[in-house]
């Protein structure tokens, strides 16, 4: 077993800036990485972050807004996003909509704030709209950077991101072969949140090559109870160590920050349409308003293809997109004899003993 030495976010940001590149702080979840990179803007995602002082956010947001959004605002107000040249806020939910709106109208940080609207369907009209939305983002970025990348550069950037995402998908698929802990695996998966595609390709490529066909290891499903983790983001990340202690292994995930972003390759020769296609054809996601049967089929397929024994819905408190689907999804899973449990968490809480006990009881029941 090996400990992966991943570069830290701050190192990556400094290195990118050192060669003249810009930084975008990007809020969850879906956005066109390739478009930003074509402008030499490195997207660095902001998923909270967890365990910070959320009180500055409380001066603008009500307590019933999820901790992911409140923390992001607190982080920004504390000056932690000052390193960013631009803030990108995808329209993921009502809370992020409000977040972007108060940034634009009231808080007005030093960087430009660029919201992106993501359509809630996958019809031709949605594709056309999203491509137009990306064209508008292109114009906004051009105004900020004074660069106007040509279609060929956009397509090259697309190709690089598609290659990185292919490897990310392979990493998800071949996780059983890798002699690394679950925590290490998910750190590697989540490094896509800030690593430039070319670096991610290099690291993941080497990892997949170096660790193939290793046989049994501590994270092997042969020795552990395989489960699916569903939700928005696996924070606190110690959940993976806790699961390992319970002799459970996340064999696949339906996390908005991870498995729901396994974007397929696009097909269009138009770079904007291609970027839009990739997002709209990603696995079903509550925040994109996917139909319940689609989500249910997706989860059932994940279970069937991985032989998972059950699903842990691990959700951020107050996350309406997730909460609406849960009862029907769980009923549908139960009808297919797939057990599931729900754990709610706040980004600022440790992995509580109560949550640990519930997951433990669930794993024991599966085992």
């Amino acid at each position, binding site marked *: 077993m090996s400990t992966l030495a991943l570069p830290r976010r701050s190192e990556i940001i400094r290195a990118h800036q050192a060669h003249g590149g810009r930084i975008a702080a990007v809020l969850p979840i879906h956005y066109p990485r390739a478009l930003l990179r074509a402008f030499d803007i490195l997207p660095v995602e902001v998923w909270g972050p967890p365990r910070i002082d959320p009180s500055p956010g409380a001066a*603008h947001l009500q307590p019933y807004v999820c901790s992911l959004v409140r923390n992001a605002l607190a982080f920004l107000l504390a000056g932690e996003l000052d390193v960013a040249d631009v803030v990108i806020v995808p329209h993921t939910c009502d809370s992020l909509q409000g977040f972007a709106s108060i940034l634009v109208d009231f808080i007005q940080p030093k960087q430009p704030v660029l919201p992106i609207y993501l359509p809630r369907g996958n019809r031709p009209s949605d594709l056309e709209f999203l491509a137009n939305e990306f064209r508008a983002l292109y114009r906004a970025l051009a105004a900020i950077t004074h660069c106007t990348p040509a279609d060929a550069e956009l397509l090259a950037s697309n190709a690089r991101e598609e290659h990185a995402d292919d490897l990310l998908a392979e990493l998800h698929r071949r996780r059983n072969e890798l002699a690394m802990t679950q925590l290490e695996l998910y750190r590697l998966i989540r490094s896509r949140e800030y690593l430039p595609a070319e670096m991610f390709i290099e690291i993941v490529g080497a990892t997949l090559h170096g660790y193939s066909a290793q046989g049994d290891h501590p994270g092997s499903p042969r020795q552990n109870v395989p489960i699916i983790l569903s939700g928005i983001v696996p924070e606190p990340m110690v959940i993976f160590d806790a699961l390992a202690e319970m002799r459970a292994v996340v064999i696949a995930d339906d996390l908005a920050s991870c498995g729901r972003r396994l974007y397929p390759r696009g097909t269009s020769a138009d770079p904007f349409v291609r970027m839009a296609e990739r997002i709209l054809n990603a696995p079903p996601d509550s925040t994109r308003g996917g139909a319940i049967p689609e989500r249910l089929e997706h989860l059932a397929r994940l279970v069937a293809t991985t032989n998972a024994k059950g699903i842990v819905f691990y959700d951020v408190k107050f996350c309406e997109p997730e909460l609406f689907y849960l009862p029907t999804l769980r009923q549908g899973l139960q009808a297919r004899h797939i057990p599931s449990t729900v754990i709610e968490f706040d980004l600022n809480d440790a992995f509580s003993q109560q949550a640990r006990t519930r997951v433990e009881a669930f794993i024991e029941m599966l085992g």
Partner: protein
Amino acid sequence: MSLSNEINYRVNTTIGKAALRAVRWQAERQASNRWKTDYLAPQLKIAPRTKELIGRHYLEGQYANANAHRKVAWATSGAPTEFLKAMDFYVLYPENHAAVCGTARRVEDISTEAENVGYSRDICSYARTDIGAMLSGKTPVGKLPKPDLLLACTNICQTVLLWYRVLAHHFNVPLIIIDTPFIYTETTDYAVAYVKRQMEEAVPIAEKVAGKKFDEKKFREITRLSKTASELWSQVMERGKHRPAPISVFDQFIQMAPIVEMRGEAYTVDFYADMLKEIDERIARGVGSVKEERKRLLWDNLPIWYRLRYLAEFLAERGVAIVASTYTNAWAELAPMFDPQNPFESGARTYLHPILNRGTGYKLETMKRMVKEFALDGAILHNDRSCKPYSIGQIDQRDRLLRDADGRGVPALLLEADHNDPRAFSEEQAATRLAAFVEMLE
């Protein structure tokens, strides 16, 4: 449709409507005052007619599934339903039904049905109420018709889409989504084109369900009626500028039902025309909704449906009239955008622009404008736990109202509650805060 169904439908709706009319006549003769305080003017004479209209609407709904000539659509309150009405759909608005449950104080009982199967109390209480009603059949309106079609428009929140996904799965019927990109600052031509295209593409889906061809001439006429009713509703609210205000926001909350769920109907136009006449009579006679109006306030956000009377009376007794509301204004401010000659294009533009689909800065500007135009002394911002899109931004909006409305501060109170769930409302706490706020206004 079987003959017995046809007879059942005709007899029940005819008898039911006659009974509702009789109830209305009786109420009009008695001219009863529903208030428990003398500080409020008697209810509007048109109130029994509102009750009759709402009663007729739900009565039609009760038997709608028995009428094979008419299909049922459930739609969100901000959805462009004119094209459905052009195909003679009976349109039910679950949000309105939930509000009816709220005023009837049935929410706790009904929403528990949803909570018992796993719906979190952190989701919208309208949704919980309607999902509870869907699962249990419990409702204060007799019976809700099953939908043949669902129409969700995201111009009021993303929540409705998630909610309608649940409905679509439960009823196994088609769901039309009209997605309206949120307007942070200003809209784009491609967003208008996107909404227009979705509306046009929805027509064949609805035609298939209705078994009827879309009638564009009828669509234009219904759009015209929607526009006219919205204009009249706008004038009703404008009358609140008079001092004393002839109509309060609490009256508006009750009288808004037709503009939400009966838009595009000739009788809705007649209703608001008559209401306007009555209000003008009140103005001529110097009748104020609050008899001793001393202070005038703005209401922001949804009503607290289960405490309307309590709040109206509490404030009236202290000489406070709430005369303007960003919420009731939402069904009026878009009236000029409707163009009956160009119903798809103008419909797309209209339904993109509700206040809930616009940025927090726009809402602040709307509040500031209302404060000025209605000569208001302050604002109550209902911090509604169940409506994130309306509530997020209120902390900053209140702050700006306090310190920079035309150089003079406007007192503003954030009142914590939930529009439909009484379990999230502390009457003692609200009373203390309201009393302190009113004292501060003096």
